[in-house]
């Protein structure tokens, strides 16, 4: 096993472990900071897929924006939770969350059996592999945003502006919505 593969599987294991802890751990603060670990490791996986610009954007958008926003929402929503950080953890699987676990694992089973039954190397472009590392640079991404995908890009920017104005309006203090 080569060293790159070892790094890949270590990053994947970090993402899996921290994601599992995010959804199962009882404490909200720990879950938010474990989400941070998952996002950073996931950006390492983007670098492995030679999508380095996306890896940078992942760190800037998610870690710099989304996570800070989540911490703000946490601070604005429950201030009492920071006081009892050392509270004993409840049971992991209680009876009320059992249907959710069963449904999600059935979903995973269907997904994985479909994947394993599909011969993925049957796809033509996976077989012939005309991938050049120079194909995926920032240059090409910028050109295809500004030419082929200009209309979706503008639509997304308008949508983002509307969403931010709406969020600022919703979270405003004072008058009732």
């Amino acid at each position, binding site marked *: 096993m080569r060293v790159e593969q070892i790094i890949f599987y270590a990053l994947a294991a970090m993402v899996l472990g921290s994601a599992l802890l995010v959804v199962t751990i009882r404490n909200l603060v720990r879950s938010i900071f474990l*989400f941070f670990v998952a996002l950073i490791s996931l950006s390492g996986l983007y670098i492995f897929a030679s999508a380095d610009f996306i890896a940078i954007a992942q760190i800037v958008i998610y870690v710099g924006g989304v996570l800070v926003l989540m911490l703000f929402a946490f601070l604005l929503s429950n201030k009492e939770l920071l006081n009892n950080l050392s509270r004993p953890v409840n049971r992991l699987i209680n009876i009320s969350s059992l249907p959710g676990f069963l449904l999600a694992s059935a979903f995973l089973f269907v997904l994985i059996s479909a994947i394993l039954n599909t011969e993925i190397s049957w796809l033509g*472009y996976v077989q012939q592999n005309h991938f050049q590392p120079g194909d995926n640079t920032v240059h090409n991404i910028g050109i295809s945003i500004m030419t082929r995908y200009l209309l979706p890009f503008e639509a997304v920017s308008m949508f983002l502006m509307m969403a931010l104005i709406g969020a600022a309006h919703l979270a405003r203090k004072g008058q009732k919505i």
Partner: protein
Amino acid sequence: MEQLTQTIQSVPLNHYILFSSIIFAIGVIGVLIRRNAIVIFMSIELMLNAVNLLLAVFSVYHGDPAGQVFVFFVMALAAAEVAVGLAIIVMVYRNTHSIDINVLNRLKW
């Protein structure tokens, strides 16, 4: 450059797909079993990230940057969703003093 290609190819495509589907299933578990609204948002972000990773990997295998462009669109939509959703969470907390989503049962039939 040749070595970079070999590095990417040393991890088979199937492992990326399996990894992404496991992450997606973890997100589904989080949405189904947790009642805290912020944790549900993080689970949705996990699902979006799994799809993003798969888009990036397939775009690399295809040798086409269009997949990465769509990753940016998905990221923009996720950021907008989080902004609006967290504003809604703050409003819910102001009105009910809790972010447990089981409190929000007034529209339940």
